[in-house]
């Protein structure tokens, strides 16, 4: 039937256009999050250790956003060390899975700046996303890292270090 063919072609075209536009708008995210200034040679002493060198930059949006943080157990980091720094062999570039784990989780604190529209939260790092910061529009802010050290946290005499990877996820419109 003529009507069927013509109508079908139109619907197909419309569908393709809609799908293309949907994917273009839905999958090209404008918002970005960058992290710089992270401590790589942090010297831990007994007690509380604080560091606010980590800078987070959220850009590409005028909307509200939320930044969550987690230990994604990158590069095969063992799950029992989630949220805590694990012994790492910098020479071989791998985790020492039989090695030492710091006793306490790394704590992150996001800043609260009412005038800047930022609300920060204190997070004990873990394997799941936890809300660290809420804000709107382009923002740059410092994260305060806290690492408590006890005598049960071994000194490593073999050139190894302690390490953890932070994954920051930003969601727009939240």
């Amino acid at each position, binding site marked *: 039937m003529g009507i069927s063919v013509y109508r079908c072609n*139109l619907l197909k075209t419309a569908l393709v256009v809609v799908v293309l536009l949907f994917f273009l708008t839905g999958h090209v995210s404008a918002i970005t999050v960058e992290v710089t200034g992270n*401590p*790589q040679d*942090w010297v831990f*002493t007994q007690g509380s250790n604080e560091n606010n060198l980590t800078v987070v930059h959220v850009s590409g949006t005028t909307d509200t956003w939320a930044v969550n943080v987690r230990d994604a157990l990158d590069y095969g980091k063992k799950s029992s060390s989630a949220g805590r720094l694990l012994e790492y062999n910098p020479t071989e570039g791998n985790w020492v899975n039989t090695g030492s784990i710091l006793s306490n989780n790394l704590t992150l604190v996001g800043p609260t700046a009412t005038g800047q529209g930022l609300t920060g939260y204190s997070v004990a790092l873990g394997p799941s996303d936890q809300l660290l910061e809420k804000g709107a529009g382009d923002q740059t802010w410092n994260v305060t890292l806290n690492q408590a050290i006890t005598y049960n946290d*071994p*000194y490593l005499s073999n050139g190894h270090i302690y390490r953890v990877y932070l994954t920051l996820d930003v969601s727009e419109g*939240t």
Partner: protein
Amino acid sequence: MRYPEFYMPGPGMIRGRRPLLCSFFTFIPVRESPASNDPRDRFGVKNMKGKILIIAGLLALVCMVMVAPVMASDASASTSVSGTVTKVVSLTTSSGAETITLTPGSTTHVSTVTLSASQNCAGTIAAKDALSSSKPSSTAGYMANYSTSSSTFDTAISPATQLTDKVALSGTTSGVYAAAAQITDLSQTSPASTLYTVSGGGSNSALGLDFSQRTEYADSILPNGYVYEIPVEFDYTCS
């Protein structure tokens, strides 16, 4: 050319839809194609495809506008935090000096002195005669005569310069601190005798110490101003 039935006038849905599309399209500038002047094209069939494409596009835009705020536009960043723990070892005794009374023919124990240890590495705690305050090396491991007035050891006095038997020392197992066998000779220096073997990091503010001294009848009574004394040094070595 046979016109699609869709655009033929007729009853029902098709007839009802046509005015709706037309009214909507009045806001859309669409260039009329020559074909639309075809008197047979009563409903602008030739333009209809373009118009529907436009409405599809508009629908897509509406979708974008409506869906975009609902959808979370996500992005991620990853970075690492690395550091080292400084080596910490601390040893202190609860008392700088302990005074005891020695009784000939018996062994005197002193357990009032304790050791406070804190460390973040496994290792050993060793003890030895410090031979400080001019204590002669010949008296290593022994309590020797000490001048309370000059605060030095004085071997010149007669008749005795040191006790007959050496001081013995032992610890008490607690947590990561495992007491080694009793030290019966504090003169050992290379290496010093092990008092505790420590299996890891930890802290204990009152590790037990037991000094014991056998006193013989041959051990002389010292003149006033002198006492028998031995300075003991404790060393922690990370393994």
